[in-house]
């Protein structure tokens, strides 16, 4: 039997980081991984990661995997066994795995189990139909193999995985009909949600999937509203034509091997379900066995890597007496910092149940906004939630962005210092930074947006300016396109100044005319026709098309209609007469007026 100092089961971010750390401390290590190459779930992540600059922030997941892999290849102490499926752990730290149809046995002084997690299933009628996939499965097919399993998607669950999947699907060129969320608020980070909302993907809160439709394969889905007890509200069911349903309602740790190794597990829902009990330094109840990554708590690749490192440092101490005390303390501090934001409340309370208390070094704060400088090309930061990320601060060559000691604090811009270079727009993993310059004399604004879609726009092209919810706002003209090696390009376009805080995405015009007035269902085309027939008075357009006359009273579309009129007539919006506002400003039942009033 082969003897090793350390065996790592699972070559994902936790296992890879663990191996590198062990190798660096002269520990002979072997990684056993079930796949053709290591990298775990990182290889299918095309988005840039949040986090600290020292921890691969602003780097795309698959590139992090490549970098770690390079380090592993260079390290003489690390051996990698791919296509190796571990089937059991036996007494005396014996690990048994199958490779090429053959059984292999190895023994190690210490074992690091980093088997990760698997997607939770969601039971609904026909949930076993082909075409209902775990979100991760769709990512694997799409981003690892370049194979698209469908054309029209419905995503269940608005956690980060669901949100990121929606964005990746659109990048790959297919349609996402909606994201359905059972709770009353979005599960994932706001910046990830905003990314998909402005591409026009609705996030339906308080909704659930009732059934999948189809005989052999998914052809549709029925969704419905639910009440606060998660019961579907009769009469709210509606059918959607989709061919693929992706489930992202959470992950659950894969504890089987840890249990075989004699590690005690406990049910801690905050951490993802059954998890092995372990101490702060990742040691389980079996002193020779350590865990890291999603197996220990469902979190992110960034925290998985830090946990892998901590486990490895402690293992190295056991194995060859390496002095790793200071390093461990440093990593524990970093980990605590990552977990100090409001989005980590669950993890913190889950860990507390296990007796691990996280002392937060400095509390994250909502930094106060500084005064803006109108008329200068500068960054606009739309990142108001406390998330573990400081890529913008780290990327700015001019020190114009401040976050502070705790990376969960929100970023603020010092517009005086900002030179308008655009570096932060390109670096931001949340795509939450835009560039802006008002051109007051011509009543326009130049807006720069991060753009990661195909085709890339070109100078002079006409595009649609879309709102934060993905609705048509106005036409825009592309001024310039800056390409970057990391593929987050910046597209600058000009639009009416009135829409500077509304437009946040540019899209190529579609054949189908967009609806401008949602209440009365009036399209852009209908409005343009009326204007083309010679009608240039807003009140007249209103009478002819019924725009702004629906229940919302024109709150959503009035300015958009004025924008169209302005574009057609060449008169700036500010110079147009915008009609009279009549009561009621909110929808009221007619019976109220019939009853008559009480004059005071």
């Amino acid at each position: 039997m082969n003897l090793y100092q350390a065996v790592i089961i699972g070559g994902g971010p936790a296992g890879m980081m663990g191996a590198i750390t062990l190798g660096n401390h002269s520990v002979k290590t072997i990684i056993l991984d079930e796949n053709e190459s290591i990298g775990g779930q990182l290889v299918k992540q095309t988005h840039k990661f949040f986090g600290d600059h020292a921890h691969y922030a602003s780097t795309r997941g698959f590139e992090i995997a490549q970098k770690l892999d390079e380090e592993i290849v260079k390290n003489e102490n690390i051996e990698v066994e791919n296509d190796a499926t571990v089937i059991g752990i036996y007494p005396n730290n014996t690990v048994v795995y199958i490779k090429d149809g053959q059984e292999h046995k190895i023994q190690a002084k210490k074992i690091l189990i980093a088997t990760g997690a698997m997607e939770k299933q969601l039971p609904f009628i026909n949930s076993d139909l082909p075409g209902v996939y775990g979100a991760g499965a769709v990512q694997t097919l799409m981003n690892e193999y370049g194979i698209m399993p469908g054309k029209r998607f419905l995503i269940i669950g608005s956690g980060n995985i669901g949100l990121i999947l929606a964005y990746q699907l659109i990048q790959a060129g297919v349609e996402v009909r909606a994201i359905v969320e059972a709770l009353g608020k979005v599960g994932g980070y706001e910046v990830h949600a905003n990314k998909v909302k402005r591409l026009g993907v609705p996030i339906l809160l308080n909704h659930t999937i009732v059934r999948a439709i189809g005989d052999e394969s998914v052809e549709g889905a029925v969704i419905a509203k639910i009440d606060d007890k998660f019961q579907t509200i009769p009469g709210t069911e509606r059918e959607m034509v989709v061919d693929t349903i992706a489930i992202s309602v959470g992950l659950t740790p894969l504890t089987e091997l840890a249990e075989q190794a004699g590690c005690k597990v406990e049910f801690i829902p905050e951490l993802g379900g059954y998890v092995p009990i372990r101490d702060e330094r990742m040691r389980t109840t079996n002193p020779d066995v350590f865990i890291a990554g999603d197996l220990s708590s469902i979190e992110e690749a960034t925290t998985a890597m830090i946990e892998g490192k901590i486990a490895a440092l402690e293992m190295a101490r056991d194995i060859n007496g390496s002095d790793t005390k200071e390093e461990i303390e440093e990593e524990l501090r970093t980990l605590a910092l990552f977990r100090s934001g409001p989005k980590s409340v669950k993890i913190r309370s889950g860990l507390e149940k296990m007796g691990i208390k996280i002392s937060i070094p400095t509390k994250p704060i909502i930094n106060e906004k500084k005064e803006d400088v109108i008329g200068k090309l500068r960054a606009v930061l739309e990142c108001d939630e406390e998330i573990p990320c400081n890529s913008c601060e780290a990327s700015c060559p001019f020190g114009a962005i401040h976050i502070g000691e705790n990376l969960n604090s929100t970023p603020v811009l010092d517009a005086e210092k900002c030179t308008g270079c655009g570096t932060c727009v390109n670096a931001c993993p949340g795509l939450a930074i835009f560039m802006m310059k008002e051109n007051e004399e011509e009543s326009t604004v130049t807006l720069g947006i991060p753009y990661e879609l195909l085709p890339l726009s070109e100078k002079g092209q006409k595009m649609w300016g879309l709102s934060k919810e993905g609705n048509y706002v106005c036409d825009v003209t592309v001024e310039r396109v800056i390409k970057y090696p990391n593929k987050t390009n910046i597209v600058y376009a000009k639009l009416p100044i009135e829409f500077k805080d509304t437009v946040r995405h540019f899209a190529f015009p579609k054949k189908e005319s967009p609806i401008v007035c949602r209440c009365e269902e009036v399209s852009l085309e209908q409005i343009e026709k009326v204007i083309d027939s010679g009608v240039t008075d807003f009140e007249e357009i209103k009478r002819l098309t019924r725009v702004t006359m629906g229940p919302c009273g024109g709150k959503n579309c009035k300015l958009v209609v004025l924008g169209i009129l302005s574009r057609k007539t060449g008169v700036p919006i500010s110079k147009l007469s915008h009609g009279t506002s009549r009561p009621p400003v909110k929808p009221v039942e007619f019976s109220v007026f019939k009853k008559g009033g009480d004059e005071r």
Partner: protein
Amino acid sequence: MEGRIEEHPILQFKRKKKIKFYFEDREVEAFEGETVAAALHAAGIRVLRHTPNLGRPTGLFCAIGKCSSCLMEIDGIPNVRSCMTKVKEGMRVRRQKGKGDVL
């Protein structure tokens, strides 16, 4: 080929050698390095087996070898995870019906 992404804003798919395999005696094209399940999806095939008791069609769920939803009969051997098995030239793949005979 159908179902395969050609152009992507972030990723580049470097495909290896083109090969052929058989699905229910029908010839299917694939690229070396793809899993059986992936190659079938590229060809628009999503039903991978029928369940033992109710005979319901099922397919992929996790695609990473964890859920056993994708079991197929590959080169005569039943209960093989098609999401973890690399497709090979001339391979014979069938939908698994029922539990599969123990060899």
